[in-house]
């Protein structure tokens, strides 16, 4: 089959590799019909995720059709149309049973790596480095799905791929970001980053009762999308100081909740931005923390920071005094897709949610390299690329 293989920073290639096969009884093989390039794939593309190996198949947001099931998979049959969550959960450990699927104890065969770095192992993620399990990813014609008897969501055939695909990753990530805010009546939610996850976080914040949503980015087309589809007020942080603007827009209080939908490659301004870029370039700091810092200062006293953008290592110069003295609450984590997917599918089916607006580019799998380039450089107003194997 054809698959997108990572060969180093800024080097992805569409190559012919062997087809996946069933390795365990609870496996299924899915023929992929749509697979997205996620903002977090750019961290891999840019070379900031450790333990990648040349030749690794990448990608984790996908849907398709079941073509083979293992002997332990009783709930799926060949021909089923399915959406699959990007994090892999066994369904039986204490964490999966408590709906904390991305903390699964049992899905990562390389547990020792994460234990060494993080103290404990978390769930594996398709195509997201050996630290996160080393599973072959989804930017391919076929994929092996472990533990396919739990978490995989069957979807009806009368909706388009683009209405369903993002239930795999971007919508539950945004939704969980909003849910972690524990939104109260009258709350203002500020969202940093207007990519797909940010857009869905904004929409989810309204679904969960936010009074106002304010979007922060620097690309006009992304802010425009946030305004038009997510009904957010917008701040372009290249035009104004985002912290000051947020304060002025909220009666001097600051937003009640701040959602980070950017992650470890945040783009800072001025001296601080150079500081992070320089340190990250020489690997003195693995994660650039500009958004985190700004959220800690901007958030109202006693407010909540909800962190959905990916971090993988170490960060510097966090204004922890601000966080401590303002009594902030930090909530974060990889999304628990399996917890949200059925509810989100319901919302799509009843017309409450149509996520297809985020797609700006549709490309054949063969053009993945071009897709990564325009997505990374935000060329051609690129916001979301969907690959069609």
């Amino acid at each position, binding site marked *: 089959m054809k698959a997108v293989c990572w060969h180093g920073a800024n080097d992805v*290639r569409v190559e012919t590799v062997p087809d996946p096969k069933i*390795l*365990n009884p609870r496996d299924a093989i899915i023929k992929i019909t749509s697979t997205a390039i996620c903002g977090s794939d750019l961290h891999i593309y840019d070379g900031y995720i450790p333990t990648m190996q040349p030749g*690794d198949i990448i990608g984790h947001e996908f849907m398709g059709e079941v073509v083979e099931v293992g002997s332990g998979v009783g709930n799926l049959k060949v021909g089923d149309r399915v959406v699959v969550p990007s994090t892999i959960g066994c369904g*039986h450990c204490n964490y999966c049973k408590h709906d904390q699927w991305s903390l699964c104890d049992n899905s990562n*065969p390389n547990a*020792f790596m994460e234990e060494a770095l993080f103290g404990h192992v978390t769930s594996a993620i398709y195509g997201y480095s050996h630290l996160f399990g080393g*599973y072959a990813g989804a930017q391919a014609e076929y994929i092996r799905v472990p533990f396919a008897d739990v978490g995989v969501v069957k979807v009806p055939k009368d909706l388009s791929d683009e209405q369903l695909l993002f239930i795999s990753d971007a919508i539950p990530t945004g939704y969980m970001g909003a849910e972690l805010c524990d939104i109260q009546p009258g709350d203002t939610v500020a969202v940093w980053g207007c990519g797909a996850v940010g857009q869905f976080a904004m929409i989810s914040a309204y679904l969960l009762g936010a009074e106002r949503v304010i979007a922060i980015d620097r690309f006009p087309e992304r802010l425009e999308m946030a305004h038009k589809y997510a009904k957010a007020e917008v701040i372009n942080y290249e035009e104004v100081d985002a912290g000051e603007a947020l304060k002025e827009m909220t009666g001097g209080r600051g937003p009640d909740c701040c959602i980070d939908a950017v992650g470890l490659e945040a783009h800072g301004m001025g001296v601080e931005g150079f500081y992070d870029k320089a340190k990250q370039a020489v690997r003195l700091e693995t994660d650039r923390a500009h958004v985190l810092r700004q959220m800690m200062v901007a958030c109202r006293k006693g407010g909540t920071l909800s962190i959905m953008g990916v971090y993988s290592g170490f960060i510097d110069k966090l204004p922890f005094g601000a966080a401590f003295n303002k009594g902030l609450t930090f909530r974060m984590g990889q999304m628990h897709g399996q917890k949200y997917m059925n509810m989100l599918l319901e919302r799509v089916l009843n017309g409450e949610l149509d996520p297809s607006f985020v797609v700006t580019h549709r490309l054949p799998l063969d053009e993945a390299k071009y897709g990564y380039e325009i997505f990374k450089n935000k060329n051609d107003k690129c916001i979301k690329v969907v690959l069609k194997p």
Partner: protein
Amino acid sequence: MTSGQEIVPNDPHDRSEGSSVSDAERWGTLIGGGAMVLLGLRQGSLRGALTALAGGGLIYRGVTAQTGIQDKLGMNDSIRVEKTVTISNKSPEELYQFWRNFENLPRFMKHLKHVSVTNDKRSHWIATAPMGASVEWDAEIINEQENRLIAWASVEGADIDNSGFVRFQPAPGNRGTEVKVVIEYNPPGGAVTATLAKLFGEEPKQQVGDDLRRFKMLMEAGEIATTEGQPSGRK
């Protein structure tokens, strides 16, 4: 964190494999308690402790004799590993029953090629070593508490002298069962960790940890997560 009782006193008598009732009680507290076993075992050998717990040298003379000689020669270069996992959906009874059938162990112990049970106490173990070699030993159960503890020691003539125990106890608040494995290796001639790593192709601590994790996967998820055999673009 630990009560004083769980830490082995510094009294020189207590580091021997003595057979007094109080020794056995102390070892019992150490092995059955919540403290880190190896912390309490800074002095003395695990083999000696396990033997003492079983009632001194009476039950397993061969082992105590061997330990005594090792101690006298100062060959205390043993390698010790302690690892614990919690398995959420199985009782101590279920896990004990699975483990007690030693022929099940190669299903999750990666380096173990085969275990054959000779009789109720004795079994024969074959493990893989690098370059297609293998190492073998006979082990005897030196202490056993049904549904709770299995302690073993290799007998004379083992390629790798080893002893240890596995313990199953309920975790608080319905969190499942805590499974603790403590192993002591005495490589021939007081060899260092590197020698053992060469023998197994992996650092002993990681090996035990990985094996226990595979045990947890097998018990909880019914299968062991793997990526071996999946496609990639590596040439």
